[in-house]
C-alpha cells in the first residue's frame, strides 16, 4: 500500500528537479547566445576600429605611392606588389608539391613505417609556429644557399609553411572520390597514373582548390617569417618586370629582388611610436583583412557549392 502523501511529495520533488534541469538548460543556451554575441561584438569592434582609423587613408594615392617618412604621403605600392609576387612564388612551390604529396599518400603509399613517418611529419609541421619557419629560411635559404632576403626566399618559406594545408586538403578531396570511378578506369585498361590524372584529380579538383585558397589566404597574412628573413620595411622601387620587349623576353631577375609586403608594412606602422602612422597602419590592416576574408569566403562558397552539386 502506498501512502498518497508520500507519492505526492515524491512527485513534487521530481517536478522540482525537472524544473531545475530545464532552467539549467535554458541558462546554458542563453549563455551560449551571449557568448556568440560577445564574440560577434569583439570582431565588430575590431573591424570598426580599423575602418574608423584607416578609412580616410584609403585613397587611390595610398595604393600608388611608395613608403615615406611622412605619414600622410606614405603608400603601399611596394607592399602590395611585393605581396602579389611573393604569393605567386608561394603558389608555384606549394601547389605542385602539396598536391603531389597528397596524391602519393592517398593513391600510392602502402601502409608502413615510411608512410607513418610522412604522416606524423605533416601533422607536426601544421603546428610548427610560423616564426620557426622563418628561422629555417634564415639559416637555409638566406645564408647557406645565399638567396638573401629576396622574393624567392619569401616564396619558398611561405610555400613550405602552407604545404601541410594543401596536402591535407588534397587528401580529403581524393578520399571523397568513390572507388567505383577508379575501378571503371582500371577496367578499360588505364594505368594507375592515367586513372589518377584523368579521373581522380579532376573529380577532386574543387576540394583541392578550396585547400589551396585557404593556404594562400594564410600565407598572405603571415608576418613573422618575413620579419625573420629580413624583409625590408622601406623600399622605393618595384622588382624588375618579368617581361621585356627584347629577347629573351622573359626575365627572372625579380626573384632575387628585395621586397616588402603588406603584413610587414602593417607591422612597421603599427609599432611606430609616432601616432601619425596609425591611420596608415589601420588602412594597410584593412586591405590585408579584406584580402584574407575574400579568399576564405571564396573557399567556403566553393565548398558549399561542391557539397550541393555532388556528382555521386
Amino acid at each position, binding site marked *: 500500500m502506498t501512502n498518497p502523501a508520500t507519492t505526492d511529495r515524491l512527485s513534487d520533488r521530481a517536478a522540482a528537479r525537472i524544473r531545475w*534541469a530545464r532552467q*539549467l538548460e535554458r541558462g*546554458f543556451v542563453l*549563455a*551560449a547566445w551571449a*557568448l*556568440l554575441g560577445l*564574440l560577434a561584438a569583439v570582431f565588430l569592434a*575590431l573591424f570598426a576600429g*580599423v575602418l574608423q*582609423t584607416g578609412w580616410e587613408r584609403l585613397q587611390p594615392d595610398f595604393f600608388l605611392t611608395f613608403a615615406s617618412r611622412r605619414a600622410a604621403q606614405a603608400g603601399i605600392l611596394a607592399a602590395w606588389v611585393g605581396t602579389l609576387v611573393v604569393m605567386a612564388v608561394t603558389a608555384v612551390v606549394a601547389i605542385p608539391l*602539396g598536391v*603531389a*604529396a597528397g596524391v*602519393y*599518400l592517398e593513391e*600510392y*603509399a602502402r601502409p608502413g613505417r615510411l608512410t607513418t*613517418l610522412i604522416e*606524423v*611529419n*605533416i601533422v*607536426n609541421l601544421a*603546428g*610548427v*609556429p*610560423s*616564426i*620557426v*619557419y*622563418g*628561422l*629555417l629560411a*634564415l*639559416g*637555409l635559404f638566406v645564408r647557406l644557399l645565399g638567396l638573401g632576403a629576396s622574393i624567392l626566399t619569401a616564396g619558398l618559406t611561405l610555400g*613550405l609553411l602552407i*604545404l601541410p594545408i594543401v*596536402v591535407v586538403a588534397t587528401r580529403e578531396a581524393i578520399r571523397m572520390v568513390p572507388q567505383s570511378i577508379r575501378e571503371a578506369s582500371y577496367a578499360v585498361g588505364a*594505368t*594507375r597514373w592515367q586513372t589518377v590524372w584523368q579521373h581522380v584529380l579532376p573529380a577532386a579538383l574543387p576540394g583541392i582548390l578550396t585547400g589551396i585558397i585557404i593556404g594562400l*589566404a594564410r600565407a598572405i*597574412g603571415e*608576418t*613573422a617569417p618575413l*620579419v*625573420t628573413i*629580413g624583409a625590408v620595411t622601406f623600399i622605393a622601387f618595384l622588382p624588375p618586370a618579368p617581361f621585356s620587349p627584347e629577347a629573351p623576353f622573359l626575365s627572372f631577375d625579380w626573384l632575387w629582388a628585395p621586397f616588402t609586403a603588406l*603584413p610587414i608594412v602593417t*607591422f612597421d606602422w*603599427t609599432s611606430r611610436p609616432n601616432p601619425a602612422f*596609425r591611420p596608415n597602419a*589601420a588602412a594597410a*590592416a584593412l586591405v590585408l*583583412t579584406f584580402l*584574407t*576574408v575574400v579568399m*576564405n569566403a571564396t573557399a*567556403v562558397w566553393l565548398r*558549399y557549392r561542391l557539397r550541393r552539386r555532388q556528382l555521386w
Partner: protein
Amino acid sequence: MDTMRRQQQRWRHRWETGIEWLLAGAALVAVLTTLGIAAVLVAESLPFFRVVSWRSFLTDTQWTPLFAEPRFGIGVLLSGTITSSAVALAVAIPCGTWLAMYLSEFATGRFRESVKPILELLAGVPTVVFGYFALYTVTPLLQKLWPALPGFNLLSAGLVMGVMIVPYVASLSEDALRAVPMSLREGAYALGATRLQVAWQVVLPAAFSGVAASYVLGISRAIGETMIVAIAAGQQPRLTFNPLEPAATVTTYIVQVSKGDVPYGSLSYRTIFAAALVLFLLTLVFNLAADWIRRRQRLHGRVL
C-alpha cells in the same frame, strides 16, 4: 609487332615508376622540412651553447644579451610566453568548449552550418591585424577599467590571442562531439536525461580525447603566436607571471633581434636560434601529444 608492343609496355612501366618516385619525393619534402628545421636550429645554436652552458640557459633568472656581462636565462622569456598563453587559454578553452557543445548538441543544423564558416573566416584574420586591435582598441579599453595598466601588457595580448584561438578550439571540439555515435545520446534520452545532461555527462566525456586534442593544439598555437605579443605585450624581458605587466616572450625576442636591434653574427644573434629551438621542441611535444590523443580516440571509437 609483338616486340613493339612489349617495348611500349616497358616504356609505360618506366613512366609509371618514374611518376611514383616523383610523387614520393614530393611527400618526402615534409620529412626534409622537419629535418631541415632541426638541423638549422641545432647547427646555428651550437656556438651559443659552447659559450653558455645548458644549465645556466635553463636556470638563470636574467635575460640580458646586450649587457657587458650578458646573462641568458630562457626562463625569463618563457615566463612571458607562459603568462600570455595562460590568459589566452583561460579565454579560449571555456568559450571554445561552450560554443562547441552548443553548436553540436543544441543548435539546428542550419544555424550550425552558417556559424561554422563565419568562425573560419574570423580565424583567418591575419595575426598582425589582431595585434593592432590589441594595442589600439583593447588596451585603451582595459585602461579605462584599470588606469594603472601600462600601454604594453600581457593581459591585452593574451585576451586577443584567446579570441583568436576560440574559433579554432570550437571548430575542432565540435567535430569531435559530433563524431560521438547517436546511440549513446539515444540511450541517455531513453533514461530521461535532458539535453544538457546528455551533452555534459555523455557526449563530452565520450568525445573527451578529441576535445583534449583541440586544447593541446590551442596551447601549441598560443605558445607560437608571435605578432600579437610582439605588438601589444612590450619587448622588455622580465621574469613575471603578472599579466598586468609588460614582458617579452620567446617569439617577441626573435622578432626584436630579427628587426636588427642586435649586431649580426654576435653571440646574442645566435640566441634567436637557441630560443627558436626551445619553441620548436615545446610545440613538437604538444603537437605529437595531440596527434597521439586523436589516434587513441580513433581506436577507442571503433569499440564504441
